[in-house]
């Protein structure tokens, strides 16, 4: 009897520590014998509808919050005199300056609603381009223009993105953005920003996600990426190769990247992004008072993204900025309202300018979701 009691006591002693161990499980793999084939044949109890996911395998991480800094090398700005010049005129430049930009970039993209059947993200951005220049002292209109932008160019935006799955493979994306862009700076006594000058853009895209490695779509966009109001078709093509080493992230013409996955925590992207918008020039020293700087640039770059810890990633971009547009329109003739020129319009610019290519680097710290 005593032997039995002893064994019982020892068994309880051991089992109590086993129970303690189980309550603090840290092993992810369950090493127990189980006949997994019993789970092959099942029937539904609950009912759900299957929707396609907004992602595919191995896309670069989605940035919830991002803080970055942008620095360019020197480019040469050549300006025309104030007057009517056609965009394709080979106008005689009356002066030129070297300049470069630097500035902070803050972006947030919060999934307000994020369910299988509906994703709604709301975001905002603050992008600053502070300018450094070797402005010439005796250069008339050129000098006046440099005065306009020497305080820096600021862009603030609010945006929202809706992803709506239409069943298991089709989806719809709607994106809207309102921007306040100009040569204003906060805390200064200068004019601006003015809500009347808000720029609105948007994209509607219908797509298919045939499998976990591919999604594509077609749509239309109202955009300022080329510097001025435009309506263009857009094509999405995100792809990951079967070996999951490489892929593409394309939303043409806004951006197109080749993606190389070094490993799950290191990603390299190579390609370009078209960035641009229209900036209101407040407190202008020109005769015209309703000026808009149509700025657009193609950023050809290599982008290295690395996980630092958990969901904190860093990004380093290096490349060349090809300045596609740096012209100025006067909106006086259109009652201070923006107008559509498109690629083929013959409206003349008030200033036709060029800015030469410049190298650039951008570093950022990001809170992401993979």
């Amino acid at each position, binding site marked *: 009897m005593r032997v039995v009691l002893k064994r019982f006591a020892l068994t309880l002693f051991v*089992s109590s520590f086993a129970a303690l161990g189980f309550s603090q499980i840290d092993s992810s793999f369950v090493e127990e014998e189980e006949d997994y084939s019993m789970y092959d044949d*099942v029937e539904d*109890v609950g009912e759900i509808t299957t929707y396609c996911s907004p992602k595919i395998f191995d896309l670069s991480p989605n940035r919830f919050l991002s803080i970055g800094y942008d620095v360019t090398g020197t480019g040469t700005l050549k300006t025309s005199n104030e007057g009517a010049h056609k965009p394709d005129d080979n106008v005689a430049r009356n002066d030129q300056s070297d300049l470069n930009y630097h500035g902070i970039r803050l972006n947030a993209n919060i999934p307000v609603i994020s*369910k299988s059947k509906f994703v709604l993200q709301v975001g905002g951005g603050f992008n600053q381009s502070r300018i450094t220049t070797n402005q010439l002292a005796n250069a008339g209109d050129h000098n006046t223009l440099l005065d306009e932008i020497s305080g820096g160019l600021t862009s603030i935006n609010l945006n929202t993105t809706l992803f709506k799955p239409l069943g298991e493979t089709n989806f719809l994306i709607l994106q809207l953005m309102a921007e306040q862009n100009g040569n204003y700076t906060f805390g200064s006594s200068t004019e601006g920003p003015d809500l009347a000058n808000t720029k609105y853009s948007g994209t509607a895209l219908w797509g298919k996600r045939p499998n976990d490695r591919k999604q594509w779509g077609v749509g239309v966009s109202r955009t300022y990426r080329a510097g001025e109001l435009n309506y263009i078709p857009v094509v999405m093509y995100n792809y990951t190769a079967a070996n999951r080493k490489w892929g593409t992230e394309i939303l043409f013409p806004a951006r197109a990247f080749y993606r190389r996955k070094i490993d799950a925590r290191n990603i390299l992207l190579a390609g370009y992004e078209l960035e641009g918008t229209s900036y209101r020039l407040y407190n202008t020293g020109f005769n015209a008072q309703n000026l808009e700087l149509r700025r657009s640039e193609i950023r050809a770059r290599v982008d290295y993204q690395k996980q630092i810890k958990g969901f904190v990633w860093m990004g380093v971009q290096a490349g060349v900025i090809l300045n596609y547009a740096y012209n100025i329109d006067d909106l006086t003739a259109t009652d201070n309202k923006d107008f559509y020129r498109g690629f083929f319009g013959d409206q003349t610019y008030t200033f036709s300018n060029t800015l030469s290519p410049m190298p650039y680097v951008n570093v950022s710290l990001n809170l992401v979701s993979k």
Partner: protein
Amino acid sequence: MKKIITLIGALALLFTISSFTSSPASVQDGGDDIIGLWEPSNGKARVKIEKIGSKYYGKIVWLREPIDPATQKPKVDKNNEDEKMRNVPLRGYRMLKDFVYDEESKEWSGGTIYDPESGSLYSCVITMKNDVLDIRGYVGVKALGRTDTWKRIKIKKKN
């Protein structure tokens, strides 16, 4: 000596009993409703949720594509941040861990969900309605996350 062993036995018995009776999610509350077999909305896996001690865990018991086409071997956790875990089979993997049921809010919280496709571990909260789970994985705060729905399934009875 005999007395000491008997005393240890009695203490162990008391400890064992108390460790089960002090559970915040005892059988009487709704916490155990989550126990069973579930399928995520993408249908790629089946997960068995079980209770161990006072907490709830879910392990992958079935994969729609159990073989990795790259290696022609059973899929392993190759995206795991921890290099030592990358050879661990996905079938049998405990992807839901450490959930505690809160009777007041009717949710299972305090746990984590692991996404084998990205190798990411998210904080997670689970709610249930009509044999459907809303599983929200998030980064830091609940606002930064995504909710998936899982349906309850059961093993078909053999005739």
